[in-house]
């Protein structure tokens, strides 16, 4: 009600987003590591899939 025009609907989520981004930045090394693991796992899966075809 007291808010002005803007992406107002996102405001209530700013607590959640802030926390997620904040934690991601704090553990950035772990996040990158996780991403790397995930991508290599996905690649290996698709490679496995191709070899089976």
């Amino acid at each position: 009600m007291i808010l002005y025009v803007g992406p107002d609907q996102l405001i209530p989520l700013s607590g959640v987003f802030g926390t997620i981004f904040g934690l991601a930045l704090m553990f950035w090394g772990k996040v990158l590591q996780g991403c790397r693991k995930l991508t290599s796992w996905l690649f290996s899966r698709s490679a496995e899939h191709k070899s089976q075809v």
Partner: protein
Amino acid sequence: MKQVKQPLPERAPANLRPHELLLLAAWFGLAGGLLEGFFAWTLQQARWVAWSRLSSSVDLNILWASALVNTLLFVVLGAVLLPVLTRWGRWPALAAALFGTLTAYGWLSTSGRLRERGVIMLSLGLGAVAWRWMERAPARRLTLMRRSVVPLVLICLLAWVSVNGGERIWEKVQVARLPQPPANTPNVLLIVLDTLRADHVGSYGYPRPTTPNLDAFAKQGVLFEKTFANASWTLPSHTSIFTGRLPSEHGAGLWPYDGRFPTLAEIMSQHGFATGGFVANQLMCSAAFGLSRGFQRWKNLSWGWGDIFTHSTFGLKFHKLYRGYLNSYQNFSGMSAPEVNERFLSWLDGRDARPFFAFLNYMEVHEPTRPPREFAARFSDDPEALDRTAWRKPQKYPYQSPGFRRLALDSYDASLAYLDSQIGALLEELRKRNLDQNTLVIITSDHGESLGEHGLDGHRSALYLEQIRVPLLLRFPGRIPENRRVPGVAGLQDLASTIAEMAGVQKHPFPGVSLASRWSGGETSGDELFAVSELDHFPFSSLEKWPCYHGAIKSIISSRWHYISHQKFGVELFDWNQDAQETQNLAKTEEGARIAAEYGAQLQKRLTSAQHSEQRLVAHPR
């Protein structure tokens, strides 16, 4: 892809001296503060800020102000932590994380809208980024800081010089483009004593000696005995004064004034007047609220230490603590009456010969009232206690206890007496400059104040008499008769057309009727005159006790009857001459019901152009 891992230095290189922690603190304060000021200003321009942030003024001075505050705070904090922090070899990274977190917190808080938890977590995350940035090459980073700290100071200085110089140049350009008004065009000085209720003014019958100067002034001109503000708070009421329109027409209130109608200053400016606003109310009168339209110079911040301090995230946080602790509020910053006078007079002395339209707003009787001791002693047996009632919403005191009410009343009256002395000083300065003859001076207020009536304190809560009845005095030697009292009802929305016409601006867009006809003998006691006031619905959690929390309120008042219609609570009718406290609602009596129906119809007639507040939810271009 293989990441090359750089070895982390266990200790800071030997050439790093501990006192460089202060350099690091200053660097974060300067760079972060400049950006924080920029964010705050941009967000306020875009109006993407919480009400609490919008309502405190921001101008471009915030650029250097927040840098200054952050630098001072960070350096002090750095000095305190220095002995502990620098014991550890990796202190540069730790310090970067600390000041990085604080800087980020300052940035993320500028809108006042993001959830605190998210702001804190994201700030810590950015602090971690600062840690890693520093950790990678502390010596190189500190060299960068050493080299850039002087340029950053220069940027702040440049901001200070260019903002203030820029304002002056802009004003000069504006004034140079004005047409030349006809010879003998008078000056106009509009004075709003914010929050002054009429019945505390001597010439309105108040028995205490609150206003000797106003009373003397009243004798030199015309006094309107029954004047009513169009709203019971600053923004909509000032906008009505400036536009000649009712709040539901001009739309300012929950939203800033969007400029849909021309303002008095705009019209006066177009007719060649130098226009200046010197405004102590910094809560609602900032440029962001639209009231500065048409003014070539607009000052509502003194940029003294109080203003500087409150224009940074951390300064504001401290201010809130201070305000809660000392029961104090706005007088931490904003201009005092002597400052308003001084700024106005120096503007007056610096301008060319063209006529001026000046608007002055004083906050001395707005809560928190803090009368100087000398004045407090004149009105109270316990002058020291008056300070404790400054912010009349006491948590520690029994709210409606007679002792507290007495203190609040004494504080209001003592502050009024002080303000009156300052108005006296101002009028004397005008006389010394020979500006008392060819100047139309109007003294009024934007709304009244509840001092315990109806269980209320302050204003913007209801439309009872004490919140809307204001004084109205006009003086213009030779053009306005001396010592005349006009008994009929007047509304402040008629001031715009009155001022324009008295100043010789015959073609103007203001809808009201000039009040000049009222003192030149045109008023007969039989005339039925009305004034309309409006108050928006304020559904904010802290205001449950306030009638406007529960619904919008509208009021119409004549010289005898006061009709108030509340969206939820229905109609009230008071015979306000007999019942000035408005305690006896006559709407349910047989005669009262008939009058209420008649007044309800009159009110509707006057509100034809009212718009639903929902339609105003769209921000308008400024």
